[in-house]
């Protein structure tokens, strides 16, 4: 009935707050091994329906659960086979190609430790790395960075590199220096004006000074690399609806990758993409969600392309705050749930696998009778990546990055060389 107004879907328009946040140091331990790893974390805000991204087509209860909304190998369009049990959403051919090339891993029935159903709190747990919401103002990625001994500054411009951008996601907030980028359509103020303002801030307001200095560093990096993203640009006519989503996803992810790929660029980044809160007319196979998953698939292709040779040292992690109800709700969508997927992509992976301790989707197997039951702790996945890719120690991971997670062992063997 929402469509009676012919309004563009909320999911199509909630794109304005994506931003890249990146860190300007190379991890020392990885460097010592002759590697130069890149990590990009993409937070999918709104709670992605994991069963719509990777469907358990080999589960005899699958069709009973989702009926004619179930993705199937012989569906229209047909789901893409992953293994004998799971199949990928047909809107994601790039992810499928990467998977077959051993460069993507899907972890299913995963969840953070959060067991309620508030986006706000769910994202807080996902990004803070704490088991409870409201525990801290810093993010796990930032705390991970603060623990890595820098081998060298990869950004030769000097100065603290803090975030610049309309909205800073919690996952990178914290004490480690961070810089950020957002699509830029205005002529920036002159260097001289910036320098004068910075001088004023330095004596009056250290926080404002830090924020402004970080953005100067980033402009310098962009200029040295002739990245067109920081140049003045005429406001471009906006495409509408799903086309705009595709463009935005690819633009922001591609720009992130361009920075990460540069020899003097940052090594770790994060961005968030909205649009996953599919309460109404979800359209997993050919509707709204298929469109968003297609846009996400395009973003992965944009990252791979922009990374160039650095792709083989890259891990991209797609994470979301929780899953959705296993069954379709009364308005052909899904409500807030629990277990979902996490996706890893990148040339550094030992991929081509779906990792799942599959709980089944019989009614009695569902969490609280309604959600895909979580059987894998998302923190184990992230700890596995941080341990093997960036060489963070297990104790630091258990105490500082994901506090109180000693019982959650880092998942081993996710990376190709580890």
């Amino acid at each position, binding site marked *: 009935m929402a469509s009676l107004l012919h309004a563009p879907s909320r999911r199509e328009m909630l794109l304005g707050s994506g931003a890249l946040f990146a860190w300007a140091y190379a991890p020392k331990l990885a460097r010592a091994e002759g590697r130069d790893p890149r990590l990009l974390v993409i937070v999918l805000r709104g709670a992605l329906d994991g069963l719509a991204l990777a469907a358990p087509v080999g589960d005899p209860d699958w069709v009973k659960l989702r009926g004619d909304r179930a993705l199937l190998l012989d569906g229209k369009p047909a789901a893409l086979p992953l293994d004998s049990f799971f199949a990928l959403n047909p809107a994601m051919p790039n992810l499928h190609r990467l998977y077959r090339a051993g460069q993507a891993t899907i972890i299913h029935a995963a969840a953070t430790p959060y067991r309620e159903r508030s986006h706000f709190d769910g994202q807080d747990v996902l990004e803070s790395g704490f088991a409870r919401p409201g525990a801290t103002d810093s993010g796990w990625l930032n705390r991970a960075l603060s623990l890595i001994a820098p081998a060298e500054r990869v950004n030769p411009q000097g100065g603290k590199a803090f975030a610049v951008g309309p909205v800073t996601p919690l996952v990178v907030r914290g004490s480690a220096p961070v810089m950020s980028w957002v699509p830029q359509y205005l002529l920036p103020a002159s260097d001289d004006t910036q320098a004068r303002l910075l001088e004023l801030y330095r004596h009056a*307001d250290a926080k404002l000074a830090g924020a402004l200095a970080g953005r100067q560093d980033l402009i310098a990096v962009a200029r040295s690399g002739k990245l067109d993203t920081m140049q003045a640009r005429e406001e471009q006519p906006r495409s509408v609806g799903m086309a705009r989503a595709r463009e935005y996803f690819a633009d922001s992810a591609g720009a992130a990758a361009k920075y990460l790929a540069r020899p003097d660029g940052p090594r770790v980044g994060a961005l968030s993409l909205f649009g996953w809160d599919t309460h109404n007319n979800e359209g997993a196979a050919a509707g709204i969600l298929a469109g968003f998953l297609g846009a996400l698939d395009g973003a992965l292709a944009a990252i791979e392309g922009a990374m160039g040779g650095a792709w083989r040292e890259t891990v991209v992690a797609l994470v979301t705050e929780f899953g959705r109800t296993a069954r379709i709700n009364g308005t052909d969508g899904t409500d807030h749930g629990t277990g979902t997927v996490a996706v890893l992509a990148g040339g550094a992976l030992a991929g081509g696998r779906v990792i799942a301790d599959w709980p089944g989707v019989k009614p009695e197997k569902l969490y609280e009778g309604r959600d895909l039951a979580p059987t894998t702790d998302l923190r184990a996945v992230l700890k596995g990546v941080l341990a093997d890719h960036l060489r963070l120690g297990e104790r630091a991971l258990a105490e500082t990055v994901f506090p109180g997670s000693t019982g959650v062992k880092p998942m081993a063997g996710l990376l190709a060389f580890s």
Partner: protein
Amino acid sequence: MGQDPTNGVTRGAAGAALALHRFGLGPRPGSIAAIASDPRGAVLAELERPGVGRVDDRGLMSSAASARAAFEARAARQAQRIVTERAKREAEAQSADGAGTDMARTAAVAAGAEGVAPPTAPGDTPERRNFLKEVKARLDAAFDAEIGFAERLVWFWSNHFCISAGTVPNLAGGYEREVIRPHVVGRFVDMLIAAEGHPAMLVYLDNAASMGPRSVAGINRTRGLNENLAREILELHTLGVRTGYGQDDVIRFANVLTGWTIISVIDNPEHGAEFIFNPRLHEPGPQQVLGKSYPDTGIEQGRAVLADLARHPATAAHVAVKLARSFVADAPPPALVERLEKTFLDTDGDLKEVARALVTSEEAWAHPRGKLKTPGEWAVSVVRSTGLRADPERFARGQASLGQPLWRPPAPQGFPDGEATWIDGIGRRLDIANNFAERVAARLDPAEILDTALGPLASVATREAVGRAESRAQALALAFMAPEFQRR
């Protein structure tokens, strides 16, 4: 912030400047002097004005009329496209027959004469024009307010009960005028019921299509419940997250709200997009929410739950801390929060009394000026300090580029207002300030702007930096970006 001349000052030019930034939308030329004798009294007096919170709505349509007009305009455009394509196809067919093009042109003219409007320029649609009228009315209210306390309250509540123009572009402006403004110094319960029953909210949070699984329509159409609105009312609009309600409460409250929907615009050109309670969608029977059973009284069942939520102590606590955070500090003084909470409870959610309690609290004046302005607050205060007006379209684009597009928050919790969210956008603010400064430099004296905008709050260093700037535009940009002007 270093030396703060306003600490605890409630009178004189410093108190006036503090009041204008903290409780209002920043000074306009002459504002500081105008209220210096009694800044607190001036702020309170704004709440007593006739029509407080309202905008000049001449020339604006109701939200439902705006949605209907948009629907009609789109339908007409679609018809026009079909007519054009049909005529083109006929012309091609006829030139293939060697029949010449005159007949085709005649056919096209004849088809076009059947009451179908000519196409407008791309982007310049009636919907867009209406939206910009709404933006202009809101901006005018912000630019014209003497202090802007009432407007700040409107912004606060509009963000608390947010919808998104991404979902309901043609309802967004009207929603604020119909739901928020009439109740901004009224009662919380009335604003709550108005918000949850507005078509914009019912579409945005998916309730319009929700139906009781045992309702007549639910049975006939094998559709059912959508929990979204019920959950967000509990979590975001009233009690707050983690206040003791459970999944069962969400489902039962969602049952209560079934039937709260909108009239279709497709087949009802007179009342389309208006609210309707449709008993056919309503889940029959009593529902137990938060331990209390509500008999099935149709639409009144929902109103009864909302009324109880409005007077729940958790709602008072939730609203109090949000208000104190928004106006005073990210970590507001506990005594202030307690006073607001108590006032809310004691007055049964009288929002005027709550607003008065905020302004009459010593803590609200004594707290250091450390709160970072949100992009919208900052941008409006920049324009106000110049005494000029901004073009609505350009202004809206600028605010969007700072991450706070008007009526389009990223999620139902609205825009955050804490420093951690916005401080990294400071470089972007400089770009906007620079851009604006270059356009208006010829007309303005930077030193005067500094006096207008900050008066005694401007530090010596800021005055020197502005005074030594290499150009008038640079001086203005520095004034707009002064640290004292970023915080309030």
